[in-house]
C-alpha cells in the first residue's frame, strides 16, 4: 500500500470514484485520503455541520446530515440585508453542494439521541445509527429569560438572530418606519452568538437611515459594559453617523429587563423606552438537541474537549460551533467552520483507530460599519490546561485611526471571505 501510494498520487479520477465529489472542496483535492468507512451523523447544517459533513464524506465516510430547513440563511452578511445592501437571496444556500459531496442530507428534525445504541431518533423516519455523532445545532433563543419576550413577541419585536424570516421581518419594519423614529437594539450579556454582531447591525441600519430617514435614531440597550471592537465601532460611528447611535451600557442602566410588544416598550431598571422598531436579541443557549442529548450543562452550553471537541458529558458525541463552550474562541461562523475541519480530521482519525494530531485554530471576524468601511478581530487558539486559550502576542483588532482606503480594502476582504467560506461550507 505504501509503495503504491508513494508512486501513484491520487488522480482526479480516482478521487472522484473514491471520495465522491471531493474535488469540489477547495484544498482537499489531491491530498485527501478517501479511505474511511465509518458512519457519521451530523446534526445541524450551518457553518459547522455542513462543513464537517462535506469533509468527512470526502475522507470516505458514510455521512448523514440531519437539517430541518431546505434553505440556510447565513447570519454573516444578514445585517447587509437589513441595510438594504443585499437581498435575502444573497444570503441563502441550499444543500445541493453538500449532497454532491456524497453526503446523505435528510430534511428532518433530530428528536433524540440514544448514546447506548448509538442512534439518532428523528421525526420523519427510522433512527439513524452512527459510529460517531457530531452536533452543530447552533443556538436556541431563550424565550424564558426576558419577561414579555416569547415567540409571539418576536413577531412584533424581531430578534433576527437566526437569519431567515426574522431578517425579512426586521427589514420590512425598518422600511415601514417613518423618518424620526427610534430603532432600539437590545443586547444580551455574554455569551451569545456573534459578539460584534449587534454593533455591526447598528452601523448598517444607521447607513440605511442616514440615506433614507436621516432624523431617526438608534438606541443600543446593552446588558454589558464592553463590546467587541468597541473603539473601532465608536470611531466609525463618530465619523459616519454622528449623533445617530446611542449606546447605553449596563452601568448606565442599559440592561433591558422587560418588554411589552403591545406598546413597543422596552423597560430597564431605570427607564422605559417606547420605540418605533425594537430588535430584541434575547439570551441564548445551545440548540435544543444539545439538551436532549445530555451534552449541555447548567449554563445551557456544551463543555467539550478543546482538541477533539468531544463532549465532556457524553462520550462519542462531538459538539462544535456556537453550541459549544470553546474557551476563548468566540461564537462565530469562521470559528464553527475552522472547528468543523479540525473535528472532521479528528473523527476520521478516531474511526481509523489513530490518535488525532495536535490542533491549532484561527478565528477571523470582519465587521462592516458601512459598505466601504470594515475592520476585523482575529485570534489564534490552542488547548492550554483543558481549555482553548488565545496565543499571546497574536490576535487582536485592526488598528484605530487607519486611513479610509484600508477600511475600504478590509470591506473587500470581508466580501471575499464571505464568498470563500460559503463556497467551502455549501459547495
Amino acid at each position, binding site marked *: 500500500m505504501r509503495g503504491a501510494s508513494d508512486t501513484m498520487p491520487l488522480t482526479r479520477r480516482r478521487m472522484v470514484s473514491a471520495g465522491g465529489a471531493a474535488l469540489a472542496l477547495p484544498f482537499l483535492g489531491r*491530498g*485527501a485520503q478517501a479511505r474511511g468507512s465509518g458512519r457519521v451523523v451530523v446534526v445541524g447544517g450551518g457553518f459547522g455541520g455542513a462543513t464537517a459533513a462535506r469533509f468527512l464524506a470526502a*475522507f470516505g465516510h458514510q455521512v448523514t446530515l440531519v437539517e430541518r430547513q431546505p434553505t440556510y440563511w447565513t447570519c454573516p452578511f444578514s445585517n447587509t440585508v437589513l441595510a438594504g445592501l443585499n437581498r435575502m437571496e444573497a444570503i441563502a444556500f441550499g444543500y445541493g453542494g453538500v449532497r454532491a459531496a456524497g453526503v446523505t442530507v435528510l430534511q428532518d428534525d433530530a428528536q433524540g439521541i440514544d448514546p447506548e445504541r448509538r442512534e439518532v431518533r428523528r421525526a420523519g423516519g427510522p433512527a439513524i445509527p452512527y459510529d460517531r455523532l457530531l452536533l452543530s445545532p447552533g443556538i436556541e433563543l431563550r424565550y424564558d429569560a426576558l419577561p414579555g419576550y416569547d415567540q409571539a413577541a418576536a413577531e412584533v419585536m424581531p430578534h433576527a438572530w437566526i437569519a431567515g424570516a426574522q431578517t425579512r421581518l426586521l427589514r420590512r419594519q425598518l422600511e415601514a418606519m417613518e423618518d424620526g423614529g427610534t430603532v432600539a437594539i437590545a443586547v444580551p450579556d455574554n455569551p451569545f452568538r456573534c459578539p460584534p454582531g449587534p454593533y455591526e447591525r447598528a452601523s448598517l441600519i444607521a447607513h440605511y437611515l442616514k440615506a433614507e430617514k436621516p432624523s431617526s435614531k438608534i438606541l443600543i440597550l446593552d446588558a454589558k459594559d464592553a463590546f467587541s471592537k468597541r473603539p473601532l465601532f465608536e470611531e466609525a460611528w463618530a465619523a459616519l453617523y454622528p449623533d445617530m447611535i446611542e449606546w447605553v451600557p449596563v452601568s448606565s442602566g442599559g440592561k433591558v429587563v422587560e418588554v411589552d410588544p403591545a406598546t413597543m416598550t422596552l423597560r430597564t431598571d431605570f427607564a422605559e423606552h417606547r420605540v418605533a422598531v425594537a430588535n430584541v436579541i434575547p439570551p441564548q443557549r445551545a440548540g435544543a438537541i444539545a439538551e436532549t442529548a445530555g451534552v449541555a450543562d447548567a449554563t445551557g452550553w456544551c463543555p467539550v474537549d478543546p482538541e477533539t471537541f468531544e463532549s465532556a458529558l457524553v462520550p462519542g458525541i462531538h459538539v462544535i460551533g456556537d453550541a459549544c463552550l470553546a474557551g476563548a474562541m468566540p461564537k462565530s461562523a469562521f470559528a464553527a467552520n475552522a472547528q468543523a475541519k479540525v473535528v472532521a480530521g479528528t473523527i476520521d482519525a478516531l474511526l481509523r483507530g489513530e490518535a488525532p494530531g495536535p490542533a491549532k485554530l484561527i478565528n477571523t471576524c470582519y465587521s462592516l460599519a458601512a459598505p466601504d468601511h470594515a475592520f476585523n478581530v482575529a485570534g489564534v487558539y490552542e488547548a492550554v490546561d483543558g481549555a482553548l486559550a488565545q*496565543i499571546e502576542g497574536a490576535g487582536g483588532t485592526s488598528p484605530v485611526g487607519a486611513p479610509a482606503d*484600508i477600511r475600504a480594502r478590509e470591506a473587500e476582504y470581508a466580501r471575499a471571505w464571505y464568498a*470563500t*467560506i460559503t463556497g467551502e461550507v455549501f459547495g
Partner: protein
Amino acid sequence: MRILAIALLAGLAQPALSQGAPPGAWSCTGCHGPHSGTTMDLRTRSAEDIDAALAAFRAGTRPATVMDRIARGFTLDESRAIAQWIADHARRE
C-alpha cells in the same frame, strides 16, 4: 504515503495529523479558498513564497490588515509546515 511525505518534507514527525494538515492549516482555507480573489488566492504561490510571506508578516515587515496578527500565533516550524501544505493542496490539476 503522501501524508507522511508531506510531514517529512515539513520536518514534522507526527504521523496522525488530521488528514495531513499541520496544526492551524485548516483554518486558512476559510479565507484562502479558490474563489477568494487576487491577494487571497494562494494557488499560484510556492511553499517558499508563502513561508517567506508568513515570516515577514510575523516580523511586521510586510504590510498587513490581519495576517500580521495571525502569523504571530505560529512558530517558524509551524508556519513552514502550513506553507508546504497549502502549496501542496492549493495547486489544482
